[in-house]
């Protein structure tokens, strides 16, 4: 479990996060949602340590990230997997090389074991036969899957995903969502997903944190979101006619759309 307590972060005198608190639960897909510029990326970067907040606590199963020394941060990061918005695959490495990379850097496995583990991870994300291709030779959806395979290679306790569906078609987005959800439950990972994709919110949001103007506005899950009276959240999630109809259907039938 990751607990964020009263985190504040400013850039050039402008406060981006105001006293934000949130809990990301183990074995659940935790979603951070909010409009562009609301501070959700800064929140995620603060949690993973790429940005240092001025105030607050970030507890990884009780261990405060902001009080760790560099060696403790290094060992914590070996427990973290991250999927970046643009996949962030290494251009100079093949698909297999990308997945093998963290294993080569952090394990004492033999080259054969490393290769087996990397291939297992690629199979887990339904990517077979692309081992020798370079990231530039595969589609955006495949790149995301390679990035997920790389992120889970070291069996992380925490998985962070920054807008995993950006730039993907709806069908591939759903596949990525399902994959992230399956992996979270299968390996009992604390997964934190930063998104503004409503399909993800309504499909896999087991713990949703809505951020507005750098403040936590709402917390709930994908069932509660239909009944929320929070105006800002309603405007954000059910902004289109399609999602308005979905909301009416769900409230009227008291069950999600099949």
């Amino acid at each position, binding site marked *: 479990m990751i607990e964020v307590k009263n985190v504040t972060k400013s850039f050039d005198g402008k406060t981006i996060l105001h006293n934000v608190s949130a809990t990301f639960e183990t074995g659940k897909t935790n979603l951070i949602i909010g409009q562009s510029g609301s501070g959700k990326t800064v929140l995620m970067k603060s949690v*993973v340590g*790429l940005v240092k907040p001025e105030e607050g606590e970030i507890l990884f199963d009780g261990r405060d990230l902001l009080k760790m020394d560099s060696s403790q*941060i*290094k*060992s*914590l*990061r*070996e427990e*973290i997997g*991250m999927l*970046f*918005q*643009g996949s*962030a*695959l*290494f*251009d100079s490495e093949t698909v297999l090389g990308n997945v093998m*990379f*963290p294993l*080569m*850097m*952090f394990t004492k496995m033999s080259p054969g074991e490393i290769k087996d583990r990397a291939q297992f991870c690629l199979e887990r994300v339904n990517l077979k036969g692309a081992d020798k291709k370079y990231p530039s030779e595969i589609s955006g959806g495949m790149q995301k899957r390679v990035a997920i395979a790389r992120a889970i290679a070291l069996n992380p306790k925490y998985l*962070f995903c920054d807008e995993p569906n950006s730039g993907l078609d709806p069908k591939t987005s759903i596949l990525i969502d399902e994959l992230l959800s399956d992996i979270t439950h299968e390996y009992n990972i604390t997964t934190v997903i930063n998104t503004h994709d409503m399909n993800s919110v309504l499909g896999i949001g087991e713990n949703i944190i809505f951020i507005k103007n750098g403040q936590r506005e709402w917390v709930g899950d994908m069932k509660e979101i239909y009944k929320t009276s929070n105006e800002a959240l309603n405007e954000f999630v059910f902004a289109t006619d399609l999602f308005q109809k979905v909301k009416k259907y769900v409230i009227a039938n008291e069950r999600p759309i099949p």
Partner: protein
Amino acid sequence: MLITKSLTAFGSYCLFMRRVFYVPDKWKVFFNRTIFEINKLGVDSIPLVMVISIFIGAVIAIQMQLNISSPLIPSYSVGLATRDIVLLEFSNSILCLILAGKVGSNIASEIGTMRVTEQIDALEIMGINSCNYLVLPKVVGFVLFMPVLVAFCIATSLFGGFAVALFTDIITVSRYVYGLQAMFQEWYVWYGIIKSVFFAFIISSVSSYFGYYVKGGALDVGKASTNAVVNSSILILLLDVVLTKLLLQ
């Protein structure tokens, strides 16, 4: 203002270099990457170095003949002057200014692109010292290989002058070869190599620094690449004066 900015940048560069010079996490990975960088930054530069050197060597020989043709100056001076110009300045300073363009822009754009596509963030998230992992093999590889490039440069430049003697009637081959051997000072070779090692360090480290701290997108990578070349070149010229004063006087 300019002084403050320069001092700030220098301080930032020093902190960056402190992160670069860490013990590598995995020596095997470091050696593999160093070999890769030697191949990419060094071996791949050999054709460019040879093409430029052969023509510049020929031009120096022709210009020497035109400018010092006097009954008071022995004809073998063409070979001697060509050799000394190549050894003292062309094979190190001028060559490094050229390589600052090729290698410097390559390093800055590669690392800059890794920065804007979040590949460096990915390394950091994995707990890898990205400065050390990305930059140290480039610095070590280029510094180690630079004397080889200098040797290629010297050999092909002198061959360029030799070709002029061979294919034209400006100077005879025997006079040119005699000039190459006359009053030879071995120290000049070491002087050139020592300078080039310093310059190689400047090119690789300064370019890496500019690439590493790129913020923005493709346009900013281009700007960083240009800044890397410009700043490396200025630093090479400044250091050239200092090293010449220290090593030749």
